[in-house]
């Protein structure tokens, strides 16, 4: 007995080092990733929410991709051309395999286009202007347009390609149908061409991605070294931060803002910050002749550009950046943030913080004693805090503003019914092209859901703006098009059509041994991550 123990004592250290060596030889690099949200579904086309997109972006791929500088590059398509204004032709990459082993062909692309354009799909915007797809040969496919879209490639970045054979085999030919109360196979399983396969899916508990050993792009210089990603939703802010500190997770996508300073002081944790292509802004009812929530009767002060300018001058954006955003913001005056096609630096200029100017403008407009108004906002952060920070600033120039902070699920329906006088919203650039923002936020609201001014809940309207948007929409010459965008953005800035506040900076928190680059869409591309 004693002998055995002695033997073990001698052998054990050798054994342990052998095991350690063996495990490093295998290079098991598992990233434990935590965020507060879990993907809603694994279906490629039935949700367009960020938590879903974050996971699916590592599983599914599209015709075009973006490199680490966010430039559009060939992905599942090797090249493309435009035989005429209404047709885009894509040559597919040969020998690409889905996770299930099926080979990618033009049939899959045609099928995916039909699936993404299905009425139940939430991914129609990824095919803006596309009417149909046509197979030319096994590796060539045409996208037929119903209207020209000069920035189709930007849209296509979000378009996910699924396997026709797999989808049909598993009765998932259409995106998830809620009405039929069916559990769709594709909501729990995924079969893409991407760098990771889904091997386990337990909603709200764990989703496991395992590196795809047969990925076509595994030789890429940008590729990191992860072999597995455990996606762990942790709803509670404090717990998520604690799990990172205790080393139970390696990466937290959304660390609680109040904990950032503390996390930064921990030697095992680092923070990577980046600017998200999103703008938080104040908007005004500029349609009604009398505001719904104001003590001014018989007229609408917000229709007067001087009043809007006064509000702009009254807001101390540096204080908001400092105190509310804890420096995680870049103040801007532009509705189109940097990183988006058409971004114009001059349009970023904000009205300077000047209470006297504001008072004078108000007096000129006929409101020397200011007026009362209600600001609506959702109860998510930082919108709710901003909503409370702004009224005291406005009161210093005489505008008596009352914040009305309500749950997100009631806030959206309210402003969608134009039931507001002033509201705060945060708007992301889904396509990374200015047209999207301009057309939905600043075009005259047509009220019939045609995609013009659909989200212009303040109903700002300017003929010149509408004309410019029309030109941007069809102009194929990118240089000319950027000129029109610039004109539109400058007009927006002068008119204070809306009052942009800032572009939020997004912090990602991670253990020191994780290497990650921030992407402006706030989606982690795991294949670029490294674990040291």
């Amino acid at each position: 007995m004693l002998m055995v123990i002695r033997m073990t004592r001698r052998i054990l250290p050798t054994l342990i080092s052998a095991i350690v060596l063996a495990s490093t030889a295998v290079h098991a690099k598992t990233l434990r990733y935590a965020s507060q949200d879990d993907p809603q579904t694994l279906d490629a086309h039935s949700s367009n929410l960020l938590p879903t997109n974050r996971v699916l972006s590592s599983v599914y791929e599209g015709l075009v991709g973006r490199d680490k500088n966010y430039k559009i590059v060939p992905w599942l398509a090797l090249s493309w051309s435009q035989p005429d204004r209404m047709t885009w032709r894509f040559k597919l990459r040969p020998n690409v395999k889905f996770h299930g082993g099926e080979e990618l062909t033009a049939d899959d692309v045609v099928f995916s286009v039909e699936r993404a354009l299905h009425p139940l799909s939430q991914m129609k915007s990824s095919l803006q202007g596309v009417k149909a797809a046509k197979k030319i040969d096994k590796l060539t496919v045409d996208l037929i347009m119903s209207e020209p879209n000069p920035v189709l490639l930007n849209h296509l970045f979000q378009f996910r390609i699924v396997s026709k054979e797999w989808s049909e085999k598993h009765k998932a030919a259409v995106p998830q149908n809620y009405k039929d109360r069916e559990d769709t196979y594709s909501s729990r399983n995924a079969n893409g061409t991407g760098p990771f396969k889904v091997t386990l899916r337990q909603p709200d508990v764990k989703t496991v991605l395992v590196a795809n050993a047969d990925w076509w792009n595994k030789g890429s210089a940008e590729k990191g070294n992860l072999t597995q990603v455990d996606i762990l939703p942790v709803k509670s802010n404090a717990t998520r931060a604690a799990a990172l500190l205790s080393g139970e997770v390696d990466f937290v996508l959304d660390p609680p803002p109040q904990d950032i300073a503390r996390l930064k002081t921990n030697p095992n944790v680092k923070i990577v910050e980046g600017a998200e292509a999103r703008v938080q802004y104040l908007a005004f009812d500029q349609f009604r002749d009398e505001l719904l929530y104001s003590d001014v009767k018989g007229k609408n002060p917000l229709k007067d550009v001087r009043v809007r300018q006064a509000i702009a001058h009254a807001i101390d954006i540096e204080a908001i950046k400092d105190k509310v955003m804890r420096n995680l913001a870049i103040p801007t005056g532009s509705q189109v943030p940097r990183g988006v096609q058409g971004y114009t630096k001059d349009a970023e200029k904000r009205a300077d913080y000047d209470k006297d100017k504001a008072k004078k403008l108000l007096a000129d407009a006929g409101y020397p004693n200011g007026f009362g108004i209600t600001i609506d906002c959702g109860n998510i952060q930082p919108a709710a805090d901003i909503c409370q920070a702004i009224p005291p600033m406005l009161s210093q120039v005489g505008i008596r503003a009352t914040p009305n902070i309500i749950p997100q699920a009631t806030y959206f329906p309210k402003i969608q019914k134009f039931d507001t006088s002033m509201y705060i919203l945060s708007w992301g650039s889904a396509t990374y092209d200015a047209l999207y923002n301009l057309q939905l936020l600043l075009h005259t609201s047509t009220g019939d859901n045609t995609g013009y001014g659909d989200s212009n809940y303040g109903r700002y309207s300017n003929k010149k703006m509408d004309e410019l948007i029309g030109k941007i929409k069809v102009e194929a010459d990118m240089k000319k098009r950027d000129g029109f965008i610039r004109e539109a953005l400058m007009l927006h800035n002068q008119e204070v059509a809306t009052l942009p506040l800032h572009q939020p900076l997004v912090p990602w928190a991670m253990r020191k041994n994780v290497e990650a680059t921030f992407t402006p869409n706030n989606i982690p591309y795991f294949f670029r991550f490294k674990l040291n």
Partner: protein
Amino acid sequence: MLAFIIRRLLQSVLVMLAVGFIAFSLFNFVGDPVSLMLPPEATTADREAVRKALGLDDPFYVQFGSFLGNALQGNFGISLRLGRPVSQLIAERLPATLELAMTAALIGLFVGIPLGVYTALRRDKWTAKAILTTSLIGVSLPNFLIGIFLILIFAVWLGWLPSFGRGDVTQLGLWSTGLLTASGIKALILPAITLGFYPVTLIMRLVRSEMLEVLRTDYIKFARARGLTNRSVHFGHALKNTLVPVMTITGLQLGGLIAFAIITETVFQWPGMGLLFIQAVQFADIPVMAAYLCLIGLIFVIINLVVDLLYYAVDPRLRIGGGGTGGH
């Protein structure tokens, strides 16, 4: 006896109909799930399409009617957030919540009763006073704060126990249990203590005051006069007679533990029904909320029934007096 049970079951159906109806009428105020299902950048046309597909454009009574009809067949619809059948989701989450609530209840009983007895018998000792003072914390500190403290101490500082999740689970038929793996048991400790803190203090204080009461009664004096051992007097005679109120409270507490494990589950990301519910509320996920509220109604009804039946077992007076009909 049988008639009593049948009557109680019929009552419970009414209770649940009422719960369902009230819940459904409240859902009109939780907001529009569609606005959360789609990004704010979505177009109005998209929203309308989804609203129609979900049947949310139907009036309230049509929605409630179709809910009832489907619920009777065990079909609670599809979760708007996760896109999966609600009955399946609840079946998946129920074991986690029940294991957590049962463990917390057991902690409550096995820690609360001995402490209660101890503080009653040694009420002038400083240890008893210290225990009573500490128990004030359990009564007054909110649940989530206790949870966060425990996480800070045992997960972040000491690194002994996990701060979230349920560890590895073993699937026994439909039941997923975390009690058979080391990581599952480790993960259970902190949430169970957090959830069990309040019942411990409650049961302890209850047992203590009941014991003090009983110890003053004549039959205890007679028992002592007969020369019985302290042990037999305290546990055989005194404790047994304190148990009826303790049982009622524990029963109701168990219902409460299951229904209101929400906070603890959220703090520890415990994948139970409470977590499912709170996320459903934030997402205005009507099918999940409706099913959850009905289920909780059912659990309370069943627990109350069981407690009433246990009275019969413990209290002989009820058996003699009430006979088959039950008198309360």
